[in-house]
């Protein structure tokens, strides 16, 4: 996959929130990632691991504390001219988790969807905008007669379709989907996931798909990044990650997911992690996972592990794969 064109390069991105004097919450702490054009990169992790903050920092909803986001060869994390900012806002769109709170209850569907079009393409006539809205509604599987209704008249799945239509309205090339299916019923989740995939093929979109449901992430993603306490601990193609997880956290996370198959479920060995995720206000020294890691060694407390390509296209940050360290089995 290395021969593909990089759409986004994230270099050592950090986002710290200052809470009180002398306390800083390190929500995202040193993430380095590339996102290729046309792929779906899944980001998984437990609540509080920084996956949503990563998405929101990428789209400039938060200002990064440090680091770079290179988008199409240009650093967009820091200062931008008005024109560049406008272009970026048009190119990158977001789909939110909660279809109930992410749509303005006092705007009609057509107003919600056309808001971006009117800002970015003010030269269009009202008729042209209306035609675009109808075409967008059609592409997300809603009837055009819905365009004058208000969000409360729709079910959760339909609202999420409106959210997707809004994101597509300005012809973006990169979409950040932050838990787009978490609030939906199982039978509706599959509808939305299929819709996202169809749209990707049709329009050549690139997705950053943030979720905690690992089986859905595996299904939709080409590559998956696993986050723990503000850092990416493993990154690989999704099949390789599920068959050969290298990081102890990924292994535990995968084994914790109940599989919808009673026979597999009965024979499975589960790695149960002790305790809970430490606070990102005062994270552990060295490797951040060491407090819950079943393989923790002395070095884990002293040195943060290096980000390393253990296999082609399979990166991991763990001392178990560091040749200089002796691993006692």
């Amino acid at each position, binding site marked *: 996959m290395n021969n593909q064109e990089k759409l986004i390069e994230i270099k050592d991105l950090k986002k710290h929130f200052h809470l009180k004097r002398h306390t800083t919450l390190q929500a995202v702490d040193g993430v380095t990632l590339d996102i290729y054009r046309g792929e779906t990169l899944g980001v998984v992790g437990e609540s509080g691991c920084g996956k949503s903050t990563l998405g929101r920092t990428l789209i400039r909803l938060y200002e990064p504390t440090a680091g770079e986001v290179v988008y199409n060869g240009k650093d967009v994390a820091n200062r931008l001219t008005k024109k560049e900012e406008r272009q970026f806002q048009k190119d990158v769109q977001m789909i939110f988790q909660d279809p109930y709170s992410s749509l303005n209850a006092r705007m009609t569907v057509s107003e919600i969807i056309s808001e971006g079009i009117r800002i970015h393409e003010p030269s269009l006539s009202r008729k042209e905008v209306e035609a675009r809205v109808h075409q967008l509604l059609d592409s997300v599987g809603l009837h055009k007669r819905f365009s004058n209704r208000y969000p409360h008249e729709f079910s959760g799945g*339909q609202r999420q379709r409106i959210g997707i239509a809004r994101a597509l309205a300005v012809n973006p090339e990169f979409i950040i989907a932050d838990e787009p299916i978490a609030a939906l019923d199982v039978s509706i989740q599959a509808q939305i*996931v299929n819709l996202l995939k169809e749209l990707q093929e049709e329009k050549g979109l690139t997705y950053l798909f943030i979720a905690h449901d690992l089986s859905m992430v*595996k299904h939709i993603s080409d590559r998956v990044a696993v986050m723990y306490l503000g850092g990416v601990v493993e990154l690989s193609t999704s*099949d390789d990650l599920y068959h050969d997880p290298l990081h102890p956290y990924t292994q535990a996370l995968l084994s914790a997911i*109940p*599989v919808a198959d009673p026979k*597999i479920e009965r024979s499975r060995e589960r790695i149960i992690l002790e305790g809970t995720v430490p606070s990102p206000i005062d994270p552990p020294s060295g490797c951040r996972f060491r407090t819950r890691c079943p393989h923790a060694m002395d070095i884990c407390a002293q040195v943060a592990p290096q980000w390393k390509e253990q296999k082609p296209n399979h990166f991991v940050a763990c001392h178990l794969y560091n040749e200089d360290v002796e691993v006692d089995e």
Partner: protein
Amino acid sequence: MDEILQVKDLDVSFKTYNGETNVLRGVNFSVQKGGTLAIVGESGSGKSVSAKTIMQLLPKQNSIVNNGEVLFEGENLLTYNEREMRKVRGSDISMVFQDPMTSLNPTMSIGKQIMEGLLEHQNLSKKQAYDTAVGLIDLVGISNPESRMKEYPHQFSGGMRQRIVVAMAIACKPRILIADEPTTALDVTIQAQILDLMKDLQNQLDTSIIIITHDLGVVANMAQRVAVMYAGRVVEIGTVDELFYESKHPYTWGLLSSMPKLHEDEREPLVPIVGSPPDLEQPIQGCPFAPRCPYAMKVCHSHMPEDFSVSDTHASACWLLDERAPEVKAPVGTEVNANE
């Protein structure tokens, strides 16, 4: 096996501003002693209403039980008055709710909340209740139980809070534990901890469990028997193997094939169930699933199907099981590795 709880023909409606909404329409299921029944279904299918009817926790002023029985060891709980019911709740049958933040009292210490049930139901002195509560906190795997007794819910993390709720629910060694989406608000690693805890306690105390969930993975992990609910009815019920490998109802097929399979590599597009669940405020003619069902026949739109018995433990409410119906094979993909 002995049945400890039987729910028969339960029919419940809610009063709303435009008339009565029929939320349960003849629900039947039973729970075996020491066994686990999972109830699955989408939101609005009546899973939680069934549980709350068993516990009589529905608001009296706008919910009506039209018909049916809830037999707990042969006694119909629906004939109990509030005073008698208070004796059942927490001691014979107890409940764990989805959100541990709203089911704990934020102004009361954890210790006091656990002791409350013990003092109410078991003739214990304060000292004995205190010691039992400390033991329970220890049992659910929280360290330093003595000092934790004095702490308040906000001082605990989500997973810890749910452990406290489980500790409260098992304090009086109930015969039945009803868990309504106990892990939906939790992360997977914490979910695994809580599910394991519930299974351990079941083995120790021989409690029966009713677990309500929409996660088929949790079902496969926990249950011996499964009831699938749709629009206020149990559409299919059977053992966990019958449901996963030999299901007969198109809705169950739909649920199984709309889930991504973690253990398989091929990226076949998911097969979603088209449309959305019916609006219960409108009267439903025939089978409620018919408008979304790819196999719907003429009869499905006009007549409600009976429960057809497939085996002693397996029943499905679908006209396809009638002898006059055409033979329909379950779509490929629902029989997950059935021959392994």
